[in-house]
């Protein structure tokens, strides 16, 4: 459910070290038509540790951060530019280490 016609809710999931810093799951209320970049900025604003974990000094997303939207991996410039829809699930996590 949206708060107003000009905003939307996205569901954030974080895993491994990111989960320990950010929490496992939470929602963000952001302006309609926001991109992943807005989500990252909102999360980075939560704490210096979150900012250092996710962003370079110029605010761009660090290369090792993996992003999935609705369980689909996002690559290339879309890691920041992809425009989100109300109710989207955005998962963020560090490189995998299974097996």
């Amino acid at each position, binding site marked *: 459910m949206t708060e107003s016609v000009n905003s939307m809710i996205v569901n954030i*999931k974080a*895993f*491994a070290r990111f989960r320990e810093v950010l929490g496992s799951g939470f929602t963000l209320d952001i302006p309609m038509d926001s991109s992943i970049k807005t989500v990252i900025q909102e999360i980075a604003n939560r704490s210096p540790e979150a900012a250092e974990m996710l962003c370079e000094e110029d605010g761009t997303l660090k290369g090792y951060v*993996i992003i999935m939207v609705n369980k689909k991996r996002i690559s290339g410039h879309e890691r920041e530019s992809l425009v989100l829809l109300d109710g989207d699930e955005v998962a963020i*996590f*560090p*490189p*995998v280490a*299974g*097996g």
Partner: protein
Amino acid sequence: MIALTKGEIDIQRYIEAAKTKKTGGIVTFTGVVRDDGIEHIILEAYEEVAEQDLIRIAGEAINKFSLNSVDIIHRIGKMNVGDTILLIVVGAPHRKAAFEGCEYIIDTIKESVPIWKKEYLTTGERWVPGEHAPE
């Protein structure tokens, strides 16, 4: 069978199940908790995605190497030294395809499936960096 599980893995059961009349070779990979001075490890997964990834990887391997069967059982949760983390069982008409298929599966899992390991050492704790983590 393709699964994430919190229970112990019965390796022999899956090997026996892979024996069919058309199978000439079965190759298994067993990932085990190594004693690097750890007390235990905990594996965490993005479960919905990891399960679908394992299913996709098994299908790719079957098609790519003309395999008869693939089982992938990956544990999550707490494990001790010596416990089985991962079992891959690949059945094929001939050994070469079975070896190549098994190697493809473990390499692809390590590269892309969202699972992480945290080691609890006598001196503290640390997340294991992935093989594909940046330097």
